[in-house]
């Protein structure tokens, strides 16, 4: 029997209709360090231009990077994410890491691993890196490179992972699931085990940017397949590996014990209340979605005060005041909305141009009868067990 008896609020702060009156702490900045990328992934939700030796694209200036961090510290900044594009492709990545060392800021990195040399891996770890995820979309070069669009990137990514491990950090492997690689899920887990990574995360290809084309071409998995795979990964595959496996379907599809139990992997709540994106060109945005949705860009770092943007931007204020109370459709009915927050508000907005639109995955699952009924408010008369007894005086 578990000794744990604490109640865990699914409603959560701001999740039960509470209106936040002032700006919350800015916990984390997501830096999209480079506009370009060295790979050409066919599912990418940001769709960065391909960068080669001849064709270069903007990357954030280290002085601007420092200027933003200095402003963010008093707002509560405690960590930073470096992503892209491809963060390790930044032409002055050493200076960026130097700024993080100066500021004594912990950071995590999302990378394709290709450019992670031994020296860079040591520099990353020595600069405060606490988590790194590396994409591997197949257990062999043919599959991975079909997804990633560049020859030789599989071996380079695996080498990058090995270099990170040698430098003292065990990366998380991220695999984006699609029709082409779905048969390699277990093989990727075995590869990740053999290399010595810490965990494997399985992402669902979102219908955003290049992902739209994959969805339209039938190259993504059906909702039914995704739901079944999720059950298999969480219940069966997890039992056969010491690696932690994370399956990125919305919270309504995840057993509570997998989120909150002693072996759980957390609720996967989006940190939207405390996160702001910074694009390679110096724009503040909701996240990387600002690259493709201009109305989710909130200002420019070289011109605008971060405090003003964070505190007063009308879209950020609307999100703080409306989540999760104003979520519509299936998300509005879902008992998990307080932790899930619509799964990804950027994705929802991209598809509908509404901040309060339901998440596509849950909508489709509901339409096909695959949404867990027990997680819906409206299901109470059908499947709930009502507690019995008189109404306590204090509650009448």
């Amino acid at each position, binding site marked *: *029997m*578990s*000794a*744990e*008896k*604490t*109640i*865990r*609020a*699914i*409603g959560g702060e701001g999740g*039960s*209709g509470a209106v936040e009156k002032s700006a919350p702490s800015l916990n984390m900045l997501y830096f999209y360090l480079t506009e370009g990328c060295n790979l050409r992934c066919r599912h990418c939700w940001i769709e960065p231009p391909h960068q080669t030796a001849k064709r270069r694209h903007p990357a954030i200036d280290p002085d601007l990077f420092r200027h933003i961090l200095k402003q963010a510290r008093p707002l509560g900044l405690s960590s930073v994410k470096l992503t892209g594009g491809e963060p390790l492709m930044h032409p002055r990545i050493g200076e960026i890491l130097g700024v993080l060392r100066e500021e004594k800021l912990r950071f995590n990195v999302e990378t394709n691993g290709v450019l992670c040399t031994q020296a860079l891996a040591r520099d990353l770890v020595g600069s405060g890196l606490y988590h790194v995820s590396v994409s591997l979309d197949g257990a062999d070069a043919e599959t991975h490179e079909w997804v990633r669009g560049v020859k030789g990137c599989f071996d380079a990514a695996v080498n990058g992972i090995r270099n990170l491990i040698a430098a003292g950090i065990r990366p998380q492997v991220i695999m984006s699931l699609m029709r082409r690689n779905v048969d390699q899920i277990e093989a990727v887990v075995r590869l990740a085990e053999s290399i010595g990574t810490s965990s494997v995360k399985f992402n669902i290809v979102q219908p955003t940017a290049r992902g739209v084309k994959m969805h339209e071409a039938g190259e993504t998995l059906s909702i039914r397949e995704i739901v079944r795979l999720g059950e298999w990964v969480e219940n069966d595959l997890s039992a056969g590996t010491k690696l932690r496996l994370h399956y990125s379907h919305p919270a309504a599809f995840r*057993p*509570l*014990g997998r*989120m*909150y*139990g002693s072996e759980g992997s957390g609720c996967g709540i989006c940190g939207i209340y405390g996160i702001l994106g910074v694009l390679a060109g110096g724009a503040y945005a909701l996240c990387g979605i600002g690259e493709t949705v201009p109305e989710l860009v909130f200002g420019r770092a070289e011109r605008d005060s971060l405090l003003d943007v964070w505190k007063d931007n009308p879209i950020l204020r609307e999100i703080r005041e409306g989540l999760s109370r104003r979520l519509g459709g299936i998300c509005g009915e879902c*008992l*998990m*909305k*307080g932790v899930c927050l619509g799964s990804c508000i950027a994705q929802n907005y991209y598809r509908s141009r509404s901040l309060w639109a339901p998440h596509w995955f849950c909508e489709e699952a509901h339409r096909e009868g695959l949404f867990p009924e*027990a*997680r819906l*408010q409206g*299901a*109470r008369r059908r*499947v*709930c*067990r*009502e*507690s*019995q*007894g*008189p*109404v*306590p*005086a*204090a*509650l009448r």
Partner: protein
Amino acid sequence: MKQKNPIANPLIVLREEFDDWAILFDPDTGNAFGLNPTGVFIWKHLDGKHDTDAIVGRLREEADDVPADAAEHARQFIASLEQQGLVGYEVQT
């Protein structure tokens, strides 16, 4: 004024799931809370007939390895339920 035993708010729905965890939710507000299996056991005994010690006693009969400080944890748990308006007490005046 003397408080009696805790009673679960009957307007709150307990929805049990396949893995013995459960969701408590208030149909009027949509507020929801997750319970682990021990929390579910306690919730089901919040019937006004059991005090905390009696509930933990029942727990010891039904489960193995109940820790020595279970009663304190149970008290905290019930107090947190009360704070959320999920549990009340009949009051003798």
